[in-house]
């Protein structure tokens, strides 16, 4: 069975249950899936559980293999993970950090690793940042470098936690079209996004997570409905269909001009 299957995922922090048996539909290679939902719904927790960074109950199967039982090194080759927040302190230069992403887990020649890391930075359009210390980068630049760290091992499954949160308009498009391209080559891409307009434009499938459960899932036009948005976010939203089938989510706030 090809794809990612996460079933019955449960995570507790102490006595508090954050995810209680969450199921995701089968996510197929070639698809970009967006996880959306309110703050503290459990999206990051779910992503970390799938990446095996977090003790959890339930099963995560990638192409039929239970990820929990895949040795760490092999898992690093299969799964790329981009965290929601990045430590700011390191004086490593961007290129070194991407080389570390390659060489920490396996024995790879220096020449090969250096060239591969540089190629990824170039592909993401941040080659000029290669020799900048991470601590001297802007938030968005650091986010792009973090993406480079996640994709440099050429993983089958990509898990990205709010990858566009610090990016400007052009870089959002750059990152998302890169994700589309990576999915097009047969990878499974899962990204947490808060921006529903971006999600509607770029996702094949949206999964709405609400207080630790999968509240709804499906194609963007099935999920982004006033009823579901009201249930999950507790807001009255209008959903407009624009040209070329695009979807806009609008909220008429109290202070919005009439």
């Amino acid at each position, binding site marked *: 069975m090809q794809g990612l299957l996460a079933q019955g995922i449960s995570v507790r922090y102490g006595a508090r249950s954050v995810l209680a048996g969450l199921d995701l539909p089968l996510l197929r290679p070639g698809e970009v899936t967006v996880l959306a939902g309110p703050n503290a719904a459990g999206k990051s927790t779910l992503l970390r559980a799938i990446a*095996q960074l977090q003790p959890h109950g339930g099963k995560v199967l990638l192409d039929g293999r239970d990820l929990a039982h895949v040795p760490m090194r092999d898992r690093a080759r299969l799964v790329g993970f981009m965290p929601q927040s990045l*430590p700011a302190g390191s004086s490593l230069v961007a290129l070194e950090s991407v080389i570390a992403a390659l060489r*920490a887990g396996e024995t790879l020649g220096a020449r090969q690793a250096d060239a591969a890391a540089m190629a990824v930075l170039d592909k993401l359009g941040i080659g000029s940042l290669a020799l900048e210390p991470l601590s001297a980068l802007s938030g968005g630049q650091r986010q792009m470098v973090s993406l480079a760290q996640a994709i440099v091992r050429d993983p089958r499954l990509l898990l990205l936690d709010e990858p566009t949160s610090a990016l400007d308009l052009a870089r959002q498009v750059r990152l998302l079209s890169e994700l589309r391209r990576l999915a097009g080559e047969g990878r499974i891409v899962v990204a947490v996004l808060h921006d529903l307009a971006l999600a509607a434009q770029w996702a094949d499938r949206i999964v709405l997570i609400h207080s630790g459960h999968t509240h709804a899932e499906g194609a963007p036009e099935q999920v982004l409905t006033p009823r579901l948005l009201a249930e999950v976010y507790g807001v009255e939203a209008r959903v407009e269909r624009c040209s070329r089938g695009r979807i806009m989510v609008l909220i008429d706030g109290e202070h919005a001009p009439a």
Partner: protein
Amino acid sequence: MSDATLQLYHRQGRRNALLVGVLGLAALAALLLDLVTGPAGLPLADTLRALAGGEVGRGTQVIVWEVRLPVACMALLVGAALALAGAEMQTVLENPLAEPFTLGVSSSAALGAAVAIVLGLTLPGLPAVWSVSGNAFLFALGALGLLQILGRIRGGGPEVLILFGVALNFTAAALLSLLQFVASADALQQLVFWTMGSLASAQWPGVMLIGVVLAVSVPFSFRAAWKLTALRLGEDQAKSFGVDVAGLRRWTLLRVSLLAASAVSMVGVIGFVGLAGPHIARMLVGENHRVFLPASILTGALVMSLASTLSKTLVPGVLLPVGLVTSLIGLPIFFALILRGRRR
């Protein structure tokens, strides 16, 4: 464009390797300087001839080979061990203030020494000259064992380990004060000297021991260099790169605690080197552990060797405790480096 960047990156790599080489040469020069200074006032030529194995008087022979050389080598090795321990601790505990003191290793060793000096309690069968060091080593290992057990119970995260270490530190310090309180004037004198760190009693077997511990642990440190580098990007990142972070942390702490325990048990409590050695190295070559670890080792060795020379020459005719010298001389240099780094 990307080729040019890579070339620049490799050039920086070569520059860092060169810096490490320079540090090595400087450490060697400091060793030589340490060897040719001393209260005996030997002529330089005689000292050098004795070192080269040439014909010299019996007295000169003994002073150079049995007094100065073991002391100078001890200084070099202790500095290297403490700085390596500090560098790795700072990384795996994700805390720039971590050093052998942080985990209570040093103060436990001091407590062990005090038990031997004040109470005369020691391991049966250990020769008397080794009783102090032996006890210190034992206590340091005990502290380390306790820490590993406690850490395992609570999952071994860095905060938990540091808190346990601090608690251990205070406990050992309190017990040490208690022993000082009941100690005779003679024992107290000896104890104070020991807690200030002293190279005076360095002998070949001790030098050999710490040399062996270093030789065994350094290859493991270097092999873990990329894993340690990855840990600088955060625990989740390192894990997702395929690093077994919990295992790396446990194994590294075991290694560096051994290093610290053997260093402290030989020469007493020596501050500053374990903290500042890595910081100076980081300012020089950055955080890629492939160069950062060797640079830390050599910086520690250099600083300690210079301190050893200064402890003999600072006050003519008086041999100062070397731990005092590292703190008094090292700190202003360290401050200057920090301030300079800020402005840059």
